[in-house]
């Protein structure tokens, strides 16, 4: 028998029902719920007098539309306040564990899942949010679903799904200094494009991937969706197990040892076959900066803004011309000369403790450039607490950054954290779509250290030219 991929194994072990010519009914181990994509699903349950089948496998928090300012104050926006209230009521009615706004373990759903040990290898994890792919870093099959599917999972703990294909993305070589997980995934998306992974589950493999920390793996898997993939995952290894051990909701003691045996078995076999593969060499990678309005419109920090005519496909040419107009950039402009108004360090891509530590080392003892507004939004209240224990909040505040409460914040600007029209932002988030961070705002995606350096200079800089403290 030929070897199987981790995706094949996790898929096979979750099949509840299958028949030819139909999607497969698969079991869902974890259902993460937040305020934005769930109210209509709970309404649907009530309308049909249905219950939540497994409240014990369902977990809710609030992250998208909440303010990141003082938590002792009421939410100013009445529509957001209502949405938060509705989630609280739904969780009470359907008996779902809920980490509300004031809970010490509240945070971005994709940050707290792993933090609390809800995310484990070999599980199927869904959430009404496309960045659910983040949890794939643990070797879980994790993907975003729409609200109708949220309702379906609430009611049945299952989902109908056509099995996606296996896509192998290998990153070999040695990662140069200053090149982060964010630069790796942006490089990958720059090559495969925003639909390169459509219909597939990506497994990230190779020398570089196996040396990445769990937060770095999460950054990479998080942006799988920006390459169009249904999910992205990494086979679990000792790094994964060390991260999980001792976490609140993870197996403990003997159960943990037993779980590890199982987790080792589900890793991709050496002779596994993928439907497709793409290879990358990290030696040649540089820090990345997006210049356009999709994450695939990206280039090296040493590069220039391209011209529409640099592209062959007429539709791409039109899209590039439109993106440059929206971004107010001229072809040929050097990336390093682009001046910035705002800096955002946060989001489910890059708001973990490790990200904040890395950024703080760049910032320490320095000042944010005049005219630049910079903010740090920790991914969870636990991250915030741990960062403050290490004094990171002081480092950022002394440099002139704002230090906020946990939430999605300016990644999508559903709360008051938005760009003003025409403002240009270096952001550690995942999407630079038109208006994403605020109507007519201009977003450039970068790593946390690149964002931190840009905050100090007011324009993009090549972090490799700086002394980066270890």
């Amino acid at each position, binding site marked *: 028998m030929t070897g199987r991929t981790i995706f094949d194994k996790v898929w096979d072990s979750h099949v509840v029902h299958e028949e030819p010519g139909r999607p497969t009914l698969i079991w869902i181990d974890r259902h993460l719920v937040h305020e934005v994509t769930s*109210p209509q699903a709970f309404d649907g349950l009530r309308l049909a007098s249905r219950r939540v089948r497994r409240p014990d496998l369902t977990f809710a928090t609030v992250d998208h539309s909440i303010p990141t300012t003082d938590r002792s104050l009421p939410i100013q926006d009445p529509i957001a306040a209502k949405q938060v209230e509705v989630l609280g009521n739904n969780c009470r009615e359907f008996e779902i564990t809920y980490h509300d706004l004031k809970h010490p373990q509240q945070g971005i759903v994709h940050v707290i899942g792993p933090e609390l040990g809800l995310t484990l290898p070999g599980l199927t994890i869904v959430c009404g949010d496309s960045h659910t792919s983040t949890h794939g870093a643990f070797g879980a099959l994790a993907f975003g679903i729409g609200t109708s599917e949220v309702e*379906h999972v609430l*009611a049945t703990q299952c989902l109908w799904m056509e099995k996606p294909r296996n896509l192998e993305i290998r990153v070999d070589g040695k990662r140069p200094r200053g090149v982060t997980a964010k630069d790796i995934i942006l490089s990958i998306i720059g090559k495969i494009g925003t*639909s390169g992974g459509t219909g597939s589950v990506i497994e990230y493999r190779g020398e570089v991937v196996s040396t990445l920390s769990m937060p770095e793996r999460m950054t990479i898997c998080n942006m799988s969706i920006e390459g169009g993939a249904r999910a992205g995952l990494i086979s679990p290894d000792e790094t994964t197990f060390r991260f999980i051990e001792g976490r609140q909701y993870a197996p403990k003691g003997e159960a943990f040892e*037993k779980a590890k045996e199982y987790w080792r078995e589900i890793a991709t076999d050496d002779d596994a076959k993928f439907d497709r593969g793409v290879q990358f060499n990290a030696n040649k990678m540089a820090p990345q900066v997006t210049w356009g309005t999709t994450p695939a419109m990206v280039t090296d920090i040493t590069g220039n803004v391209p011209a529409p005519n640099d592209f062959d496909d007429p539709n791409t040419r039109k899209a590039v011309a439109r993106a440059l107009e929206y971004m107010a950039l001229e072809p040929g402009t050097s990336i390093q000369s682009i001046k910035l108004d705002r800096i955002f360090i946060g989001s489910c891509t890059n708001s973990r403790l490790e990200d904040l530590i890395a950024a703080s080392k760049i910032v320490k003892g320095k000042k944010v450039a005049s005219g630049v507004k910079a903010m740090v939004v920790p991914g969870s209240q636990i991250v915030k607490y741990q960062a403050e224990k290490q004094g990171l909040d002081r480092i950022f505040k002394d440099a002139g950054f704002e230090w906020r409460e946990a939430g999605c914040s300016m990644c999508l600007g559903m709360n008051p954290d938005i760009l003003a029209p025409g403002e240009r932002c270096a952001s550690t988030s995942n999407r630079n779509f038109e208006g994403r961070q605020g109507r007519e705002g201009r977003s450039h995606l970068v790593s946390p250290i690149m964002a931190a350096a840009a905050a100090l200079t007011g324009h993009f800089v090549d972090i490799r030219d700086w002394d980066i403290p270890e």
Partner: protein
Amino acid sequence: MITMEPFKRVNGIVAPLDRVNVDTDQIIPKQFLKLVQRTGFGQYLFFDWRFYPDGKPRPNFVLNEPRYEGAKILITRANFGCGSSREHAAWSLLDYGFRAILAPSFADIFYNNCFKNGILLVTLDEATIEKYFDQAAKRAGFSLEIDLTLQTIRDPDGSVVRFNIDPFRKKALLEGLDDIELTLKHEEKIRKYEEKLQPIRLIQK
């Protein structure tokens, strides 16, 4: 309960949206995701593209051109619906009046969301899409007739294009099936699976 209007055929004006990689943030911007209902999103469809910040319609946006008023079919470019999983994108398209979207490719989550709401997505080769773009530009009131049962698209000249669709999705659209109802028919299998769940897969409290 997911109430879905069955889809059999649609005959309507075609609106051409000539952009690649249209993401769901454009289909419905974030400020409208705070609403807790499922209806009434049509007024917010393509909001930032349709309206100036002061609320006046942008005359050069396709849906504001009088010739495309009442359009039921949208034709567009590759990777339509990429990005966020927000089902509000499907709700806004449906509420605006679109029942079918034709494109060379669609993003996965958006594809699912549309079918759950009775919107037919048809994947066609670039040449056919190009032909429809041409016709929509040249002829005012250009309309197509899409028959799901026959899996055909007929243009006003009588030229017919056949399209492929997954038979299960087709059946669900034709009958307006409630997915959850269908799943609950497999209750016994779900229960059996559930009983055999290894404890290490549960949340440890």
